[in-house]
């Protein structure tokens, strides 16, 4: 680790937070429907689609509308992927995807996971990339943000039953938030050297005289929303490690910032919407704190190097550079990795499979903690609020009152739904990963021996259920068993989680908003932030410790002892 490295990390984080502050206020205006500069377009969409933007929806209506929109999105994308061979904009003449892969990919992009059991440049037509995957990048991100708005509204007012209009939220988020920023970001990426073209792949002759196919495509703008919407699905197979998807350190820094601004900003939006900005800052502090600590741990572990490599006489000052590109450097790789796993993005600019065991443990654990640090766009905020409710409930009793968060009493119904939501990740991840480690058909996908093999399998289900989408690597993922069960994990991780969360929002919205006093549990300031951080670790993380002990932790100690498999 070096001071220069830390300075890089600090600079990028500072820029992200600086951008998140005005963005947080701006998103509050989007939530309130106060922005009018695209009013004609907005009105046209409402008219065409028959949407009445002022008609409020209860939590059930809002959730059903969301589910319907996502089901339709899944059906369209599935059809497109299956039929792409017969559709235009397919210069390389790719066939349609297999039913398993199409199912897996469609779910993956609808749930904002963007797990990729395919390699973009070897499987996807330009039409599939643009009209299928990119459209879902926008819609799944907008869905998450819309849900977060609905949950915020439940805290903002007392005794209401309506949480807003899902369709209007979706339209406004796309029009006023995601499209404009993606445009600017996409142009910046073009300027930094990313292709944005519909021309076919280029055949080149290398210096040695061999022929090389250089894939191209409309990458820059898809990459923009891929980061901004914490989607993470790469245009190219190796994601941001590809020189056209991650052209250099500057682009990497911009990608990190793009992943962070909306999740960070939404924490502040929450403060604006509930009328107490300190509440938003407390949540942001917890998110930021975890990002910094996780980055430091990855940076430290990787800078420390691999003892087996060092034994071969590699310069210890290099650190562990296996699977990393020199054009980014360790600090940006560490921050990128902590961000992409903490933020439920899943884009990668290094190969986790080659990380030291502890360096690989951190991204894995960040996803298992519930994708709230800072979490995906929208999903990070509502996931964080679930933990905040549980923190308030467990520790809030200690001030001698029925626990309340922002004037809303936390009672049996909320606790029940919160626990249902919290159960989704361990049940899905541990259940499916454990099963896959004993099923011969699944075990065949694991090339590695020893604890590393376990980590690869655990990571796949963690990434899917956490709607992250990053791959640890190594695993042969495009098999019927993995395609299907990982698809299931993605579905559960998204929708089995969000339905109870919306139930909580519905219940909280109906409750009166109690006045705060000096006897009320304070939910801002360092004390609460520390408590929340601890509750995330204990309620969100402890259940994964036994599995982690057999995976990365065992690998770490085994490696230190010099044992290999």
């Amino acid at each position, binding site marked *: 680790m070096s001071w220069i490295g830390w300075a890089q990390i600090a600079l990028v984080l500072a820029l992200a937070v600086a951008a998140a502050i005005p963005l947080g206020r701006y998103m509050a205006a989007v939530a309130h429907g106060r922005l009018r500069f695209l009013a004609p377009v907005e009105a046209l969409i409402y008219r065409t689609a028959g949407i009445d933007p002022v008609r409020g929806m209860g939590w059930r209506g809002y959730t059903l509308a969301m589910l319907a929109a996502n089901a339709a999105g899944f059906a369209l994308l599935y059809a497109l992927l299956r039929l792409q061979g017969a559709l235009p904009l397919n210069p390389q003449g790719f066939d349609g995807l297999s039913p398993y892969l199409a199912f897996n990919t469609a779910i993956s992009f609808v749930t904002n996971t963007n797990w990729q059991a395919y390699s973009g440049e070897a499987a996807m037509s330009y039409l599939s990339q643009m009209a299928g995957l990119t459209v879902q990048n926008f819609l799944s991100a907008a869905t998450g943000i819309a849900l977060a708005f609905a949950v915020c509204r439940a805290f903002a007012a007392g005794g209401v039953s309506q949480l807003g209009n899902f369709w209007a939220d979706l339209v406004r988020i796309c029009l006023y938030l995601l499209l404009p920023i993606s445009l600017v970001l996409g142009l910046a990426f073009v300027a930094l050297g990313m292709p944005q073209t519909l021309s076919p792949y280029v055949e080149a002759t290398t210096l040695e005289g061999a022929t090389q196919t250089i894939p191209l495509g409309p990458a820059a703008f898809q990459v923009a929303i891929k980061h901004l919407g914490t989607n993470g699905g790469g245009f190219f197979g190796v994601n941001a490690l590809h020189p056209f998807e991650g052209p250099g350190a500057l682009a990497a820094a911009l990608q990190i910032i793009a992943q962070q601004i909306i999740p960070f900003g939404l924490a502040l939006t929450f403060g604006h919407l509930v009328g107490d900005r300190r509440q938003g800052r407390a949540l942001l502090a917890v998110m930021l704190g975890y990002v910094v600590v996780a980055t430091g741990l990855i940076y430290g572990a990787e800078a420390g190097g691999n003892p087996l490599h060092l034994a071969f006489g590699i310069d210890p000052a290099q650190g562990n550079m296996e699977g990393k590109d020199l054009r980014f450097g360790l600090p940006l790789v560490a921050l990128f990795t902590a961000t992409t796993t903490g933020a439920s993005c899943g884009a990668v600019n290094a190969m986790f499979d080659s990380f030291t065991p502890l360096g690989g443990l951190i991204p894995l654990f960040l996803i298992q903690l519930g994708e709230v640090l800072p979490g995906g766009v929208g999903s990070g905020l509502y996931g964080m609020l679930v933990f905040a409710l549980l923190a308030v409930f467990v520790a809030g009793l200690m*001030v*001698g009152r029925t626990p309340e968060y922002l004037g809303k009493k936390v009672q049996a119904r909320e*606790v029940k739904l919160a626990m249902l939501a919290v159960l989704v990740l361990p049940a899905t991840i541990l259940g499916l*990963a*454990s099963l896959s480690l004993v099923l011969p058909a699944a075990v065949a996908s694991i090339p590695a021996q020893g604890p590393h093999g*376990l980590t690869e399998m655990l990571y796949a289900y963690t990434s899917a259920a956490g709607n992250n989408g990053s791959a640890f690597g190594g695993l042969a993922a495009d098999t019927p068993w993995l395609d299907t069960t990982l698809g299931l994990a993605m579905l559960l991780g998204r929708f089995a989680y969000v339905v109870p969360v919306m139930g909580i929002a519905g219940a909280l919205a109906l409750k009166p908003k109690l006045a705060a006093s000096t006897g*009320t549990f304070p939910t801002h300031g360092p004390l609460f932030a520390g408590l929340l951080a*601890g509750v995330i670790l204990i309620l969100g993380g402890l259940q994964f*410790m036994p599995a982690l002990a*057999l995976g990365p932790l065992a690998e770490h100690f085994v490696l230190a002892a010099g044992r290999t498999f």
Partner: protein
Amino acid sequence: MLDITQTPHQGTTRRDRRAGAALGDPAILRHAALAAWGKLDPRHLVRNPVIFVTEVVAMLVTILAARALWLGEPWGFQAGIAAWLWLTVLFATFAEAVAEGRGRAQADSLRRARSEAMAKLLLRGDDRTLWQPRNATELRPGDLVLVEAGDLIPSDGEVVEGIASVNEAAVTGESAPVIRESGGDRSAVTGGTLVVSDWIVVRITAAAGSTFLDRMIALVEGASRQKTPNEIALDILLAGMTIIFLIAVATLVGFASWNGEAPSVPVLAALLVTLIPTTIGGLLSAIGIAGMDRLVRFNVLATSGRAVEAAGDVDVLLLDKTGTITFGNRQAAAFLPAPGVGERELAEAAVLASLADETPEGRSILAFARERYGVEPMALPAGAKVVPFTAQTRVSGLDLPQGSYRKGAVDTLLQGAPGEAPVAFRSAVDRIARSGGTPLAVAKNSRLLGAIELKDIVKTGMRARFDALRRMGIRTVMVTGDNRLTAAAIAAEAGVDDFIAEATPEDKLAYIRRAQAEGRLVAMAGDGTNDAPALAQADVGLAMQTGTQAAREAGNMVDLDSDPTKLIEVVEIGKQLLITRGALTTFSIANDVAKYFAILPAIFVASYPELQALNVMHLASPESAILSAVIFNALIIVALVPLALRGVRYSAIGAAALLRRNLLLYGVGGILAPFLGIKLIDLLLQLLGIA
């Protein structure tokens, strides 16, 4: 004339109930140790998911140990784990039994009062000589019964005729008899109490089995105990955590089989039981019972646990001025001499004028003069002639050889005084009247010496208590019939946050509704029938035992001592209950961290001996590590029983400070304590050569 000198016939005295059973009362512990076994019935335990899971797991491990014994395999370790898992369950049921045991003794004494009553059922409402004996349990609401001196009142009811003194020690613990009469605010009588003089005719209002006494017995016994809303929510959290750790432990079989052998069932059972929140699961119902019990000891009966919790949540306290904030009787507060008269001269004259005055006001003048001016009251001098107070003159005093001393109504004494009254004197009198006090004039030989200010004195320590309440975010509101000016003066002196002057029952109700609309929870105390709507509207309504039946039914708590000031303590008891629950939950959950460090390296020792690096406690062997964690997990329940029953200390330091203190104590402490405890048990096991 009423005879109220009889000695109490039965019932516990108040001191008995207050002191209650000590924490370590051997009789209760003995009884609880037996009762704990009865509670092992799975049908009973299923109400408590955490402990139920522990019991199922204990059964499983027991069967496995028995099987190993049968097959001639090593069985000691398995039997050890099984034994400690059973002890974990037993300790939890024991905690509940101890909590219940403390209420049982009270219930028994109450039951005696209930059982033997025989009623004199009146056959005709207008003739109280015509009655026939009837068993109390056969009475129906609406029946009229005659109760005479020496009779137990057979059931709850309303006095419709007559007046009697009643010993209510059976329910209140207070043996001094109280007056019960028809009409007014003292007409409610309670079944099981004793008429000690005179007679009354009572209209029965409660059906057999649902009288006040019945409810009280059920309450102190915990028989009708239902889980409170907060307890239900906590139960759900604990059940959820249990499921999460069930998943974590069950899936471990698959994970462990990837690279070696899966751990044995007893080891997995040990891991599961140490991870699920057995500590709070085992103590939760004991905490609830103990909280109600604390209230009962404090002579307040809550109709439900819900009300006790609501008391902890209260933001606004409505307190009657008279009797709650002030003593309710007028006392001397200042001597204001007329021009040209010394303060001491006035004080001495006032003392002489009051020497023969036996009223509380008169006594207070003597006390004030001694306190403030050192004027010692003397014996009545020989030859003194006492001039008594009459309604006509409204003046009293003493004629002595050196002069005649008078004190009394200002008007009367002004008329008798020669010349015009000094302006300074008049303005002093006006000021006293305006501030809610009563001015008395003092004269010697018809010469006006000055005025005495009598006023209703704010009880000492009230300001400090209101300050403490304010720190906990609770607003105090004084309710008084005085005019605004007077009310404002007393409110400022007492240090309350707000007041309602010239208050009518409707005003109270409106104030409560307004506060509730702003999202506040309101508590109030009341006794009259006209308080009933407000008592019912308030989130916590503390009715006085001496109050009317209507008030007692409208409130959700009854104070047997009829002391409205206790509303403040009721709030504190409610808070203490919630704090205790939260503290032990936090402690229980925080414990898990250390248990991982003990158990994880131990269970994977075969596949990954390198994981011993995580054995930061340096536990001697894998068996010892696992056993130590299980033993710690069981013993901590017993160790925390006293805390659960007594409650966590509550102090009014504000929510933020309270949270910081308790998080440090029970959160951080909860993380550290098991490291120490498990290591100690491990050392002990080594010493005994067990593992």
